[in-house]
């Protein structure tokens, strides 16, 4: 009999509610079930976790394994629960000590080799984990973006073995340092646009007062060029704005690129875009 409880995070819009990953090993016919409204990716964690544990030289217990993701009514998606599930099985079968588990939160998708793959929404999750005063263990590819949260303790790990070594105190993970320096990037320059003094002045007013603008003119008169240069007129982003903006982008499938830190986003959807594409939506609401 063995039981282990670990902490992770789900994603609901911009929020990252806490999820407890409970792993129970019981006697009986060997089986592996995951309960707690898991999506397909989470169910598939079974096979990834089994392979990763074995390839890291641990033993996959031939017991009746039940994994519960609480709260039960919150839908859970993505492979980020792979790491906490694998660690839970190892802790419940006493292959790694469970003393440090409570002070950490975990998220990471496992490769069959035991390497960790980056996760989506690292920034939003770290923000909340830091708020609750725990260190956050993340795949090293996601760690730099998570380290943007001021003061957060972010531990980047490359493989499941590194996390195990950290938890057993053999070789602690080093804290990921904040690397982005916040020098704002280069935008196209307004000086490239010839003439249009009135339009430039109007854009200046719009940028200063956060007003919406409508430009009316014949094709080729420079409307698009002017609009592309508009982000460069806006005042530099504040820390809060930059964090919120980065968190939004980190939720998207592409993830957040550190190069874009403190750069004003510029989005130009095509005119065939649907309402949902513009503001976001879907059964599990995503941003648009």
């Amino acid at each position: 009999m063995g039981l282990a409880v670990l902490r992770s995070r789900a994603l609901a819009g911009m929020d990252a509610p806490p999820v407890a990953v409970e792993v129970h090993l019981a006697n009986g016919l060997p089986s592996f079930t995951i309960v707690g409204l898991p999506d397909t990716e989470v169910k598939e964690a079974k096979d990834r976790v089994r392979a990763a544990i074995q390839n890291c030289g641990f033993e996959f217990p031939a017991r009746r394994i039940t994994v519960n993701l609480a709260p039960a009514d919150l839908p859970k998606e993505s492979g980020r629960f792979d790491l906490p599930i694998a660690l839970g099985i190892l802790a419940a079968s006493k292959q790694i000590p469970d003393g440090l588990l409570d002070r950490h939160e975990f998220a990471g998708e496992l490769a069959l080799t035991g390497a960790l793959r980056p996760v989506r929404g690292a920034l939003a999750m770290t923000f909340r984990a830091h708020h609750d005063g725990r260190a956050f263990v993340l795949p090293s590819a996601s760690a730099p973006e998570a380290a943007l949260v001021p003061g957060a303790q972010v531990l980047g790990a490359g493989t499941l073995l590194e996390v195990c070594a950290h938890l057993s105190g053999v070789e602690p993970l080093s804290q990921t340092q904040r690397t982005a320096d916040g020098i704002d990037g280069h935008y196209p320059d307004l000086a490239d646009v010839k003439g249009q003094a009135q339009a430039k002045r109007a854009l200046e007013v719009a940028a200063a007062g956060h007003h919406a603008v409508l430009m009316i003119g014949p094709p080729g008169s420079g409307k698009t060029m002017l609009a592309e240069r508009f982000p460069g007129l806006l005042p530099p982003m504040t820390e809060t704005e930059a964090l919120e903006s980065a968190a939004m982008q980190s939720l998207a499938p592409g993830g957040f690129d550190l190069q874009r830190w403190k750069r004003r986003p510029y989005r130009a959807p095509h005119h065939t875009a649907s309402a949902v594409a513009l503001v976001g939506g879907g059964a599990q609401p995503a941003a648009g």
Partner: protein
Amino acid sequence: MAHAGVLFLDELPEFDRNVLEVLREPLESGVISISRAARQARFPARFQLVAAMNPCPCGYFGHFDGRCRCTPDQVARYRQRLSGPLLDRIDLRIEVPAVPEAALTDRTIGETSAVVRQRVTAARDRQLARQRKPNGQLDPAEIDRHAAPDAKGQALLSRALEQLGLSARGYHRILKVARTVADLAGAETVLANHVAEAIQYRRPAAI
């Protein structure tokens, strides 16, 4: 996704009407709430809308060499594709005329973004110090408090209201823009010339 940034909608009348209507709410409140059967989510969306359109279906209405062959009826119908409420939420409307050849070949270099940006940042700082938010997000009570124009400006504004037939929202929008123009000029109160510039950006002739 464009939170804290810029959302550029090119060819505004070509967007489906319902698509544009969903933007009305975030433009006003700065948040998008999505409710689905399973759960709800709120995303911050304080973006800045920049839209562009052609003046008529062929695109050359008002062009200096008179190439436009659209009938007034066609032009009116093209512009009717935009709903009043959405247009009402756009503070600045400007015409971007075609560039004459002389200006295109002109070698002088205009102002760079960095210079303009300094002015913008200074004006924005002034706004934040006064009311802790940019002028575009003021509500009517705050407009009365912070952006009340002087006597001459008030007279000019009432005349404009009468002649242009502006809505109550339009009136407040003009004051907001006038406040920004005054901030750019570094003025404490909104003067008549600031109001005049703001009215320029709202002429119905442009749409």
